[in-house]
């Protein structure tokens, strides 16, 4: 059962794909830490430093449990999904990518899972290949075989699309990849908050997500990496506690995960994230999913009935996102009016320009759901859309 708390205001907040609102326990946890427990972590031996370190390491364990990683040392804290992908792209690239090697992503990726690979390819003379999707917003998974060859070094795909809502068949992708000994990175930025993830069952090699999209603070993210990779990959940043011995002649690194966490980590962010994950767990991910799916179905059905609404993303396996345009009305005009009616939606490319290019449009209106949204809010949205229509025609 969802606790219908009011997170501050009576606003209709349908921009959860961008960032989520924070539950009170998360806000209070952060405040409490700042007020009573703050101290830098690692190696400090005084009481507060000890305790902060312990809470930080417990946060790591909470993340581990949340995504069912085998070990807590497989959890690396970063500053967000984008940093996680960039860090891995850098590190993986340095270790494994030679000129002519290939990396596969999909056509529906977020810029954060495109640009780091483009930068890598440019640096290393490697090649980026793209798995396309069809007009319903479904990956053309049959074409994956043709893209894979003996130069393929990595496949990086999103679990759930932030523009289309499509839930991608990542199990199939991972299986196919592993048949060819290719590791897989899953961008779970839009999925951890909706669907239970078990990295061991999925058997993915890497998985990334952001704290702020799963009811936690900004400035904290996660890079999960299977242990076997952690020893092979070089650190992506240097400094602080990630070293073992530093001399000007030679520096050796310490063990993962600390090897990958140069400098003072955002330990308060990590602790806030852990609190958010606990909140989600205690609310129950299956209940959240059921609730959100009911809202999504309802919203989808309501919008489908309006002949001037064009919906993007018709996959049957879909989650939490309604992306659409209104005939003859610019999304920007619509968005401004919808905002004025107290409904927060997002307009534009949603950092996925290739998806827009696919449909030959310059943007959409996107309503994205969170666990606290309600049927009334969907009704409000639908009402607002009708009103927009009246104003512009």
């Amino acid at each position, binding site marked *: 059962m969802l606790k219908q708390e009011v997170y501050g205001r009576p606003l209709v907040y349908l921009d959860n794909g961008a960032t989520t609102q924070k539950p009170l326990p998360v806000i209070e946890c952060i405040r409490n830490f700042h007020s009573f427990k703050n101290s830098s972590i690692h190696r400090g031996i005084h009481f507060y430093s000890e305790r902060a370190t312990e809470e930080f390491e417990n946060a790591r364990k909470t993340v581990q449990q949340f995504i069912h990683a085998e070990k807590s040392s497989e959890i690396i804290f970063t500053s967000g999904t984008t940093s996680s992908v960039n860090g891995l792209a850098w590190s993986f690239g340095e270790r494994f990518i030679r000129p002519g090697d290939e990396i596969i992503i999909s056509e529906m990726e977020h810029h954060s899972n495109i640009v780091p690979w483009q930068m890598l390819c440019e640096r290393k003379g490697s090649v980026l290949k793209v798995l396309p999707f069809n007009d319903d917003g479904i990956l053309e998974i049959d074409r994956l075989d043709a893209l894979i060859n003996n130069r393929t070094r990595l496949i990086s795909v999103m679990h759930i699309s932030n523009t289309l809502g499509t839930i991608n068949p990542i199990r199939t992708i991972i299986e196919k990849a592993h048949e060819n000994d290719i590791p897989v990175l899953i961008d779970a930025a839009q999925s951890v908050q909706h669907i239970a993830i078990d990295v061991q069952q999925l058997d993915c090699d890497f998985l990334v997500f952001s704290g702020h999209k799963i009811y936690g603070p900004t400035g904290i993210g996660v890079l999960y990496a299977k242990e076997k990779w952690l020893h092979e990959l070089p650190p992506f940043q240097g400094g602080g506690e990630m070293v073992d011995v530093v001399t000007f002649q030679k520096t050796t690194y310490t063990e993962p995960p600390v090897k990958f966490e140069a400098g003072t980590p955002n330990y308060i962010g990590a602790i806030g994230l852990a609190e958010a994950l606990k909140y989600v767990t205690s609310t129950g991910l299956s209940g959240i999913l059921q609730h959100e799916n009911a809202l999504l179905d309802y919203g989808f059905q309501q919008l489908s009935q309006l002949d001037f609404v064009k919906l993007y993303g018709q996959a049957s396996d879909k989650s939490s996102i309604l992306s659409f345009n209104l005939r003859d009305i610019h999304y920007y*005009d619509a968005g*401004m009016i919808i905002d004025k009616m107290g409904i927060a939606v997002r307009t534009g490319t949603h950092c996925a320009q290739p998806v827009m290019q696919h449909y030959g449009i*310059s943007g959409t209106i996107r309503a994205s759901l969170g666990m606290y949204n309600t049927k009334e809010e969907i009704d409000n949205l639908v009402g607002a859309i009708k009103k927009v229509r009246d*104003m512009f025609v």
Partner: protein
Amino acid sequence: MKSIIEIQQEISGEFEMYDDWMDKYNYLIELGKDLAVIDTKHKVKENLINGCQSRVWLHAEYEEGLIHFTADSDSIITKGIIALLVRVLSGRKPEEILNTDLFFIDRIGLRQNLSPTRSNGLLSMIRQMKLYALAYHAKAKGS
């Protein structure tokens, strides 16, 4: 022709008639629809203004000491806003455009209520108009 100040006062008066922001938007939409169409040969990449979620084309012509603006946008509200700017600034001398204080923007609540700050469309439009004025001003002085 009315002065820049007079026209701004006129516009402020028009908007004051509407209590409701929704009516103000409706009025902007009307203005957008009525904006004289831009010559399609000016709807080119070079005339695009950055910083808008919607696309805005702004074209300027300099004739007998006056700058004439024509513009278009794929967003009708943006077009309405441009219509206001064109009404105030088109057909003026470069110096006038450069030195004017666009007080009507705050007075009709354009900045706070009608246009988002970050998508920055409004500011970019004004900046671009002033840049044209600067360029033609320099040209006029040079020649």
